[in-house]
């Protein structure tokens, strides 16, 4: 009699996927400061044909619920979560909202939506929010974080970043950055801002919100962008010494247990400063890449893809850290690989 593990098959990562998050409902989290234009962008996206079948979860910050009133007229469905800031006490509300949406979708209480957009309150720190996709089994079963989109007000950005460290974190962690109000900002200001944002987060494409309103697919899906999801230009010197973004690449495939040991070491010792790690890992025995995504101490379940999307298979990891620096992370990899006898 075979062990019950046989029932799960011999694939270490379960079903191989055609793309990251395939089969689950994509969730786009839209963050950005109060007044940055999140609601305007979401409204425009919902009005576009490609925005059909979208469920919207709005974080109702404060007493007025103005954002909800605006969105309710244009979306197919709005779930309101209360209790203020989405990133702390209301995190369980977001879990509950996502779980309920999935359940109601199955039972027909809500139409069969294809995606979810979460509009955060302006002061949210996005880290804990994206962690929730790794910490809640039900949420992780039904949903996949498609991307964190940060809306930046081109007029007020300079003042905002002086006032609030949260602004910097929203930019650093973003998968895509949307610049709003570029039409009323001075051209020089916009150009400077673009440079500043690119230095803070060299990973994220920076899009003009006006362009996005004409074709809002960029809000919903990174797949619509020309850049590959984990493409990175040459590392740029960080403009803000608090954060750094860099990538590590490896030509030899990893044994999965060795890779997890390395990441366990990093998250165990410096998880607080490991804001986000994402990338494709070439794992021995797997024909496709294994997609990994860490947020501080937590990891989303790794996913194996059916094939490498482009180019030669090689591990490529993007790190967004609070001051850890490339050299120290690379040293941990080298040390563990050497101990495991796998150093190149």
């Amino acid at each position, binding site marked *: *009699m*075979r062990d*019950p593990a*046989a*029932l*799960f*098959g*011999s*694939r270490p990562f*379960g*079903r*191989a*996927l*055609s*793309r990251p998050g*395939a*089969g*689950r409902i994509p969730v786009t989290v839209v963050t950005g400061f109060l007044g940055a234009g999140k609601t305007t962008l979401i409204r425009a996206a919902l009005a576009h044909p490609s925005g059909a079948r979208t469920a919207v979860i709005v974080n109702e910050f404060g007493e007025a619920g103005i954002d909800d009133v605006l969105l*309710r007229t244009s*979306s*197919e*469905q*709005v*779930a*309101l*979560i*209360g*209790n203020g800031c989405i990133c702390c006490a209301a995190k369980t*509300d977001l879990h*509950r*909202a996502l779980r*309920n*949406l999935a359940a*109601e979708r*199955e*039972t*027909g*209480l*809500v*139409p*069969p939506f*294809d995606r979810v957009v979460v509009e955060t309150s302006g002061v949210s720190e996005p880290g804990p929010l994206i962690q929730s996709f790794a910490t809640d089994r039900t949420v992780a*079963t*039904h949903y996949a974080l498609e991307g964190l989109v940060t809306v930046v007000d081109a007029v007020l950005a300079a003042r905002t970043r002086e006032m609030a460290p949260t602004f910097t974190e929203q930019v650093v962690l973003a998968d895509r950055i949307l610049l709003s109000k570029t039409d009323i900002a001075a051209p020089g200001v916009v150009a400077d801002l673009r440079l500043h944002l690119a230095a803070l987060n060299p990973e994220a494409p920076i899009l003009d919100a006006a362009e996005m309103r004409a074709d809002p697919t960029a809000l919903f899906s990174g797949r619509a962008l020309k850049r590959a999801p984990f493409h990175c230009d040459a590392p740029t010197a960080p403009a803000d010494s608090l954060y750094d973004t860099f990538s590590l690449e490896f030509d030899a495939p990893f044994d999965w247990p060795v890779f997890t040991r390395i990441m366990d070491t990093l998250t165990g010792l410096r998880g607080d400063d490991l804001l986000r790690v994402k990338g494709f890992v070439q794992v021995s025995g797997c024909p496709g890449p294994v997609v990994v995504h860490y947020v501080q101490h937590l990891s989303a379940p790794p996913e194996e893809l059916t094939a490498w999307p482009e180019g030669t298979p090689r591990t490529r990891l993007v790190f967004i850290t609070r001051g850890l620096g490339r050299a120290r992370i690379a040293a941990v990899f080298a040390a563990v690989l050497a101990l495991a006898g796998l150093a190149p």
Partner: protein
Amino acid sequence: MLTTQDRPAEGQGSTRNFKLIAQHEMGGFGGMGEGMSIQIAKDGRRILWLAHESAPKNFTGLDVTDPKNPKIVVQTDLPVAHMRSNSLEVSGDIMAVAYQTQKQGMQPAGMELFDISVPENPRSISFMDASGPTSRGVHQLWFCDGEYVHMAAGAPDFAARNPKDDQFYRIIDVKNPSKPTEVGRWWLPGTREGDTDAPPVRHEAGKDFGFRAHNTNVYPQRPDRCYLGYLDAGMIIMDISDKTAPKPICRWDNSPPYWGFTHTVLPLFDRDLLVVTDESVLDGGADWPKLIWILDARDEAHPVPISTCPTPSRDVYAGRGGRVGAHNLHENVPLPTSWFSDQVILGTFFNGGLRAFDISNPYQPVEIGHFVPPAPRLSPVGAVQINDVFVDERGIVYTVDRHTGGVYILEMDF
């Protein structure tokens, strides 16, 4: 505090993670059965052979070489209106077609073999009679190795005690296709006149659909096994190491309390799992829930149900018209033209459409996609009735409507 608002009524169509690339209404004869098989013709064309659900059409060959532009190659007629060719299978250039009549005792009822080496001109090789006083002929057949047809059929010499129990498991040697010959058979003890066993205890009135065979799947991984759906008797694994004397190894029966009509048994050999479906046969969700079951088959003599796949909501679908509930699966047909997966299950649910499930965790199947087209034109029930599905080795999905919609050709995105 969670509230949801503004839920505008939506039409019946709903698609997630499938992409419709073509629909073909089969020239106005779009009522399709549960026979779907692909032939690669000698000239390289890819022909999808489809059985029609009812007269007047027999079968259609559809050129799906370019799945965006399917073209009818041939469409044939049945000789009489009281028969149907619900099932077919292709092995090489030979196609086996099942013929069933509306009532016991009618003719022609049986199996016909065709030479389809020239797809435009299917040529009859032989006809095997399966009619009889209590027979309606052949409902379903399985033909993948070019040598044996495994089928759910009546026979001239088989007198069923109850007319609902007329079709049983028959193994037909077709190595000489001009002379199909029965080599073995098995029926549920007690269903044949003269049996020493007591008749099976019938399901209660309104739920008594019959103790007869349906799908008869045999795979090269276990050529000594037949995975047999037996309607109200549940599912049965047969030892066919001696084809002249098939023997049951186990029987798993979920009904009552469920509604019987166990239809398909799909073994996933590398994972010791069985995927079992019950067919919905009543309109309006009257026999809800009809389910896809996942069984732990590590001990093939004692299969244990461990989960079911999420089923379309009765509240949403029951009122749309026609049936809602499980029916056919993509069965990993052991031919080079068939897609294989033991991680993703595709099943048809009549007005609940086509649904795909990730069963990588067999204890917790998750729906990862669905295709529910709007009611096809001229649909007599006001809703689609997705009846069967086949996926070719390219990953192109073909799924059919039972009444008018013909075939829908899809790509998977999951």
